[in-house]
Every structure is written in structure tokens, then in C-alpha cells.
């Protein structure tokens, strides 16, 4: 990890000095254990502030839309896929970017760790395969593998898909196939059970829309839930139909675009597993069209592209 950090700092310094970019977007140290803060660096002298560790799960591609300057950006596998996606969707130009690729060692799930540790966490240190968690009264060592974000467990693309320079050696990707067991489980439910399952899951939603705001795909200037003339979706916290409308429609807007980076779930203050919706669409995209989002900038997005041999069985 330390090598990553020095390499990230070194590359950032160089590209700023050489005037290749105006700013570098990366992560700086957080004020709490298991937190990091996205930041931008303007001056080569400040590149020492850049860090990288298992708490950098926020997707930095989210900070690119509409930017005019030349940008250096730190990109894990999923960030790079969202960057590719944004390039294809004309939200940023490839020429504007200098992508510092970081082959990803998977991100730590803060909630899972807090749940297992049970008291306030005051310090967390990570090594390649362990994390040591300290509280006021105890210390515990966990296998890093058991503490990962759910999306990272099934991640198939830890290596950045596009980059200008790497901050570490490319790693061997998982050879498991994407099975979507979680999706299959929900698909197997009766429609009534499924409705209840989602109703229960969403009952705690406070409609802050942090899930949307953390998502690099959700760049609409005005989200459909915020539209006020005409107003498409009611705004009260009481109306569960409106809450469901938001979640289901948002997921559909991400169909064929979602990289399963997990930023939505990470951002939700209520710990709601919003990825359940996007995972279903990712699984369909894979099953019917052998499509995974953001792997290349050469292809049009799944849903603005028609092929005669496309899966059509759902058209009845």
C-alpha cells in the first residue's frame, strides 16, 4: 500500500509540474478511522496529501462531470470503468484526463467492521491480509477478506480498464464467473414476497438521495424526483409508493451503465442495500447481452445501441 501511495504522489507531482494537468483528484486522509476525503490538488508541493488505502471506496469519477480543466485522477478498477462510461456519454473528454490507474486490493466495509467490533472504533490499521481494529477497551485482528465491501467480493475488474500510468503492477483478476447468486435468490421469490422484501428494505429510507448523489451515473441537472413543474413524484416521507418509484426508476436509469462500484450503498446513512436493484439490471445485461458497463470507450452504451441478434424474448 505504501508503494502505491508514493507512486501516486510521484506521478501526481510530475504531471502537475509538467503542466499536463491543472488539478489532480484523489483521496486525502480522513478525520475518522475508516474514512478518507476526496480532494483536489493544484500545486505539486501539496501532492504529499494524497493517500490511498482500503477506505477509498467512494467513486472519484463522480467529480468529473462537466469539468472544463485538465484533470489527473486516481482510478481503481470501478472508477476507471465509470470514467470510460462518462467519456462515452460525453460528460468528459478523454484528452482532458490523465488517469493514474490503481490496481485495486478491494475496499473495506466500514459498516461490517463496526458491526463485528461492537464498540466505537478508534483506530484501524491494514496490512495485505489483515486489519487490526482498536477501540477504547479492546483490540481485534480480522482477516481483511472477511471485511470487504460486498461489491468488491464479486468484483471482476480490479485492474483499471483505461489509464495513462499505473501506480502498481496489474494484478490477476478473479477467474470466478459472475454468478449473481444474490439476484437469483430474489428472482426465485413469488412476486408478493418480492414486494414485501423490497418494501421492508426501503422502509427506513429518508429520501436524502445520498445514494444518487454519490453515483457517477446520476449527473442529470435535475433528477426526475426533483422536477417541480410538473412534479412527477410526490415528496412526502410517508408515501412509500413514491419512495419505491424513486428507487426503481433510478435503477432503470442506470441499466447497462452501472459498474457496481458500491458508492451508493456506502453513502446511504441508513445502510439500505440499494445495490439490489442495480445488481438485477447488471445481471440481466450480462445474461441477455453479455454486457458489462464501462469496459471500453469504443462501444456505444448497451441501451443506445441496437443489434439484430439482440435478445428479444421479452417482447410479447
Amino acid at each position, binding site marked *: 500500500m505504501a508503494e502505491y501511495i508514493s507512486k501516486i504522489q510521484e506521478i501526481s507531482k510530475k504531471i502537475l509540474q509538467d503542466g499536463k494537468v491543472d488539478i489532480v483528484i484523489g483521496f486525502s486522509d480522513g478525520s*475518522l478511522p475508516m474514512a478518507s476525503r476526496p480532494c483536489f490538488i493544484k500545486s505539486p508541493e501539496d501532492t504529499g496529501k494524497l493517500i490511498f488505502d482500503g477506505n477509498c471506496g467512494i467513486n472519484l469519477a463522480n467529480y468529473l462531470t462537466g469539468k472544463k480543466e485538465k484533470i489527473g485522477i486516481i482510478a481503481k478498477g470501478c472508477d476507471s470503468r465509470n470514467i470510460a462510461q462518462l467519456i462515452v456519454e460525453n460528460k468528459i473528454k478523454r484528452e482532458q484526463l490523465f488517469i493514474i490507474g490503481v490496481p485495486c486490493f478491494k475496499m473495506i466495509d466500514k459498516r461490517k467492521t463496526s458491526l463485528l467490533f461492537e464498540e*466505537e472504533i478508534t483506530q484501524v490499521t491494514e496490512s495485505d491480509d489483515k486489519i487490526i481494529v482498536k477501540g477504547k477497551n479492546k483490540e481485534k485482528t480480522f482477516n481483511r477478506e472477511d471485511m470487504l465491501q460486498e461489491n468488491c467480493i464479486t468484483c471482476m475488474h480490479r485492474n483499471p480498464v483505461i489509464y495513462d500510468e499505473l501506480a502498481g503492477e496489474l494484478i490477476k483478476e478473479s477467474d470466478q464467473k459472475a454468478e449473481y447468486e444474490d439476484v437469483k435468490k430474489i428472482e426465485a421469490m413469488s412476486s408478493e414476497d418480492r414486494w414485501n422484501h423490497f418494501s421492508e428494505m426501503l422502509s427506513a429510507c*429518508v429520501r436524502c438521495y445520498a445514494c444518487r448523489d454519490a453515483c457517477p451515473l446520476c449527473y442529470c441537472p435535475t433528477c426526475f424526483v426533483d422536477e417541480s413543474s410538473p*412534479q412527477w413524484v410526490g*415528496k*412526502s416521507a410517508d408515501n412509500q409508493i413514491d419512495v419505491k418509484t424513486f428507487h426503481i426508476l433510478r435503477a432503470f436509469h442506470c441499466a447497462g451503465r452501472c459498474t457496481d462500484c458500491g458508492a451508493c450503498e456506502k*453513502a446511504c446513512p441508513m445502510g439500505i442495500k440499494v445495490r439490489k436493484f442495480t445488481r438485477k439490471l447488471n445481471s440481466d445485461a450480462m445474461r441477455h447481452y453479455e454486457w458489462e458497463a464501462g469496459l471500453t470507450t469504443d462501444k456505444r452504451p448497451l441501451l443506445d445501441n441496437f443489434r439484430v441478434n439482440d435478445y428479444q424474448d421479452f417482447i410479447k
Partner: protein
Amino acid sequence: MKLVSINKEDFYAGAEKLYNSYKLYIPVKQEDNSYAFKNSDKIDINNLTFLNTRLSPKSLVFPQTEKMFSYTTDTNSEDCNIIKPINKENLKQAILGIRPCDSASFGIVEKNFDTEEYKDPFWINSYKATTFIGLACDNPDSTCFCTTANSGPFDEKGLDILLITSGDSFIGKILTKKGEEAAKIAGWTTEAPADSVSAIEKQKKEAESKISSSISTDKIKDKDTLELYNASFWEEEAFACINCGTCAYVCPTCWCFDIQDEISDKKGIRMRNWDSCMFPLFTLHGSGHNPRDLKYQRARQRFMHKLKYYQDKYQSGIQCVGCGRCIRLCPVNIDIRRICDIMNS
């Protein structure tokens, strides 16, 4: 002020009695180990070491959605297009186990909802109908900075009774008339031993010394508003902010709301919902112009309001009780303590 001793049995029995006389809210442990205020009497002493609830209890007085008026647009009705208040019955409610920072927050919010000029009947009636039975904090979190933000782990502001843990019993400090009434209903009447006062004082000092974080706001007060507003650090400090509004929704002292009409068929409801200065819609004009068009401008508003404008307007400290929720739940680690330091330097 009266001190009562409440042993474990009295406590449980009291909770049950309170439940029968009030709409009682208690902190309940959720599946993911977080806590939420729920209407129940199944309070568990072992769970009372909880730090604080994930969401503040503000919604019990100021619900996220308050239905205020109803109307019909049916031209056949003689009430067509007449807006009528929805008369809400404010049942007596009690919050048992509220932390001192959260009860202090109501005093701050009151400055907005109950003024000489404006009286907000929804908030005032609901607040008046509520009895606050607080629980002193013996083990504050490292993100709690209440002692430098209007409150403290044994603060009594806004409380009717303060419960102080003493082994597996409690000492109850009865602070108001409402508190007396609740204690009577709960059957908490056994006078506490004479040395309790000094014991509480000692416990209080200990708890206060455990507060490990603090803020300073003294210089902010004297700074020129426009200078602070135009300061160069905002863009950098607010860069990470995704304007998700989580901080405002979880905050006990954020009070902003938005009024909306919702019509289904011909029946309409006028309601108010929580809002947040972090949202672009908050300031969007009908013309399409938005005076706070950029993300950092919205983030700046939140901190300027809490730490500067509120101080200037009411001359009574900042609009924050140091509960630390916004720090713990911000997805990108925007830390009000850090921002405050920069503003104050």
C-alpha cells in the same frame, strides 16, 4: 429540583407506566446495531450504554412530513378550493433516554419556530406536549464535542428529568413541573441519598473529561461576514461534498422545510417536508436562476448559517449541539470540526 433513586425494577415498571400514560419513545437497538427511537416500553437497561441514535429525535416534534391543510378541487363540493387546517391532536408524548445534546437542540430550534413575530403552531404544540426524560452520557464518542457546542454529557437544558446511571440503578434529577408529573406517573418517588449530589458532580466531571474533541467559535463571531463568505478556502474544503443532505437530515438543529401540495383525485393535502440547504432545489428561483448554483456555495451556506449567521442573529452561540452525527455519517468525511477550525483561524 429533587433527586430520586430508581432501582432496576422501578425503572422497568416506570417505563411501563409511562407507556400507558404517554406516547412513549425509547431508543431501540436495530439489526445493524444502530439505535432508533420507537414507540415501545420494552426498554433494556443493558442497551442504555448506546452512544446515540442514528437519527436525531427531532422528527418526534418536527416530523419529516407534516400534513398541515387539506382541500378539495371538486367543483360539486361547497368546500371547493377552500383550504382547511388538519386538526392534529397533539397527544402527550415522552421521550425516555434522550441524550443531553439532543434535548438541548430543541432550545436552539425553538428560536426559529417560536419568536415574537412568528409562532409555528405545529412545532410549538408538539413541543409543549412532549416530556423529555434524558440520560446522561458516561462514555461519550470521540466525535462528540458537546461541551464546546451549547451542551455537555450531563447538560440539563431542555430536559424535564435527567437520569444518571449509578451501577444498575439510576438517580433521577427532576428538573421541571412536567418532570414531576412524569416521575409521579412512573412511580419514581424514592428520595435519593444525601451524598448523591456530590456523586453526580464527580461523575459529571469525569464524563466531561472524556470528551476528546472540541471546537472554538469565538473568533468567527467577530469576523466580517462578507470576508468569511468570500474566503478562498470554501472551494477546496467543500470539494468532496456531494450535496447529499445527509448531514442536515440527521442533524437535531437543522430546521429547514419545504411546503408542497399533493393532489390525488380531487383531494389535496398541503404538507411540509424537511428540506436542506445542500439541495440545489432549495434556492432555485421560478425563473430558473439559482443564486447558489454551485455545490460549494451550498455547503458554505450550511456552515455559515450554523457557525456565523446564527451567532450574529441570536447572540447565543452556534446552531449546533456537538452530537457528531454529521461527522459520523457524511459519506465523504466533511467534518464540521475541521471547517469550524478553519473559519475560526
